């Protein structure tokens, strides 16, 4: 990837770099095991290959992330690619423990047009953008912007192109009314009481929204944790049982029958024929009883 970046710099060809992380992959791993984790990462890799020109793609997994360098792609098209990946991941489904799993991804994106000077810088900025996207709830991409030198602060990923989400978008109608009321009050045209009333309504609405959002998140998190605890409890029980088998005192295997090789009547007994008849009669009686019971059961079923 470093060579590709150098080539891009030397010949002035565009290059996009993406870091893709599956949201809450750690939880999924704990709940459904390593196999599911590998399956998910494999599916993301496939999605990445399907969404790009495979001859151009350079990608490899690193831990729980997938790094991808896509050469010869303009900045705007890189945004479209990231958006395709985000929406494509939403459509993926997996089966684990009889449940259907759906996933989302967070993507940190950077492009050579953004003014990066080294491959290492590109990697750092993409990672920070991916982390920020994940912290904002995931299921989105963030395109990194190289920090302005005057700020001298740590490089901060900007979010010029967040994936459309339910929380972003046009100002709401109440906000417009509120702004108009505020303008009128400040210019002396409107009533301060009206402004206060509208402000209060706005605040109450925001508080309710936040409360609903936070309680919903809490429930799902609680459920997730409960499932995780149950899963870990099962694993613990199995491990304990295995440890008992390996380390514990040897369980009583039982005692072998002394009649292991000798069974049936002794032909040398004086009354062997009589015993045969008795045993046969006893067997017949038991067989009859078995049939009666079976017939009784089948008739009661029907």
């Amino acid at each position, binding site marked *: 990837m470093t060579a590709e970046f150098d080539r891009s710099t030397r010949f002035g060809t565009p290059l996009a770099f993406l870091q893709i992380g599956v949201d809450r992959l750690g939880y999924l791993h704990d709940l459904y095991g390593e196999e599911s984790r590998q399956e998910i990462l494999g599916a993301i890799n496939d999605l990445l290959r399907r969404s790009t020109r495979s001859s151009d793609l350079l990608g490899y997994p690193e831990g729980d992330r997938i790094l991808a360098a896509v050469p010869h792609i303009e900045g705007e098209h890189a945004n479209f690619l990231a958006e395709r990946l985000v929406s494509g991941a939403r459509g993926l489904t997996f089966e684990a423990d009889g449940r259907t799993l759906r996933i989302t991804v967070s993507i940190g994106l950077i492009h050579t047009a953004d003014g990066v000077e080294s491959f290492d810088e590109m990697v750092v900025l993409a990672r920070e953008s991916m982390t920020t996207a994940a912290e904002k709830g995931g299921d989105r991409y963030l395109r990194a912007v190289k920090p302005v030198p005057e700020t001298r602060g740590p490089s901060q990923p900007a979010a010029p192109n967040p994936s459309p989400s339910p929380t972003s978008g046009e100002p709401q109608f109440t906000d417009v009314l509120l702004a108009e009321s505020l303008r009128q009050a400040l210019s002396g045209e409107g009533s301060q009481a009206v402004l206060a009333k509208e402000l209060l309504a706005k605040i109450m609405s925001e508080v309710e929204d936040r409360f609903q959002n936070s309680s919903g998140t809490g429930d799902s998190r609680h459920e997730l944790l409960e499932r995780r605890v149950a899963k870990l409890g099962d694993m613990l029980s199995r491990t304990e049982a295995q440890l008992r088998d390996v380390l514990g005192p040897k369980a009583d295997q039982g*005692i*072998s*029958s002394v*009649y292991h090789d000798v069974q*049936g009547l002794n032909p040398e007994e004086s009354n062997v024929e009589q015993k045969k008849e008795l045993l046969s009669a006893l*067997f017949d009686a*038991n067989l009859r009883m*078995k049939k009666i019971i079976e017939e009784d059961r089948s008739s009661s079923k029907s």
Partner: protein
Amino acid sequence: METMTNSKKDHGVLYLGIDLGTSRTSVCASNGERATLSSFVGYAKDVVSRKSLGADILFGDDALAKRMSLNLYRPLSQGVIQEGADTSHGLGDKAGNLRAAADLIKEIIARAKPRKDELVYAVIGAPAEASIHNKEAILDAARGTVDSVMLCSEPFAVAYGLDMLDDVLVIDIGAGTVDLCRMHGTMPDESDQITLTCGGDFVDRAFEERLTATLEGARFSARMVKEAKERYASVADDMEPAMVTFPVNGKPTVFDVTEQLREACRLIIPPIVEGLGKLVASFDPEFQDRLKDRVLLAGGGSQIRGLDTAIEACMQDMLGRGKVQRIEEPMYGGANGALKIAHDMPAEYWEQLK
């Protein structure tokens, strides 16, 4: 036991003889193991009792000793799985008794220490008068634990175990019932068997009634009465004095209950001899005397001292003659015989009953 039934069974066969009794359940196994336990099953009442007992289920005397913390079942009262309430020992619902019977059978089989890799074939001595539903319940209970199972009447198992198959009268005195059976070389049918209800529990009740009537102010429980009976039971004129200690107004007091106990124990003799007389009377006249001279006394109740000679004396009076032989191991007589049947039974029969 789940693992037992799932594992590959290529080691061989373990034969079990089981005597499923009202008072005691015994097993004799072809691996040399034998075990007996009181037919009580107790389930922990709640989480606290489960914690203090360290187990969900207790069996036998352990269950009886900790009965305050348990829902106690005696599933085989009067020799059959009880379908109604067992008022003498708390809970006794049908489902509970069936579950307790299944757990009791599972426990007694576990005490025979079967290997996981061997087949288990069992013969269970069931009361002669058990109904088809009762036998079905016993079979269902056993099938969860063994690979193939047969039922046989308890007196038949005793006679088979002693190799006395011709012209024998068997008296099997259990806690719930007394089974009388006539063996004449073939499988005994209904006309060869008589079941009386004057077993050990009957003697306990009669003894308790006499104690209540004669020991003024003494306090005692059914269990204390049973313990005294098991220690001193005798019908002999010169029996050992039965001295028991019961509280009177909270003070331990010693009582001589010899006479009350002897009277209670003797109550079972007339009905037994009367039953024997019926079985003798309906037999071939030519062989009646031989039948009277070959009477086997088995079961827990046969441990009453002097009972064999007392029955002989009564037979002399009522039937003209009689010779009674007490079996050597009353606790295991039925189980030993059942084991012998299990072992002698051809392998193909076991296969067909799986």
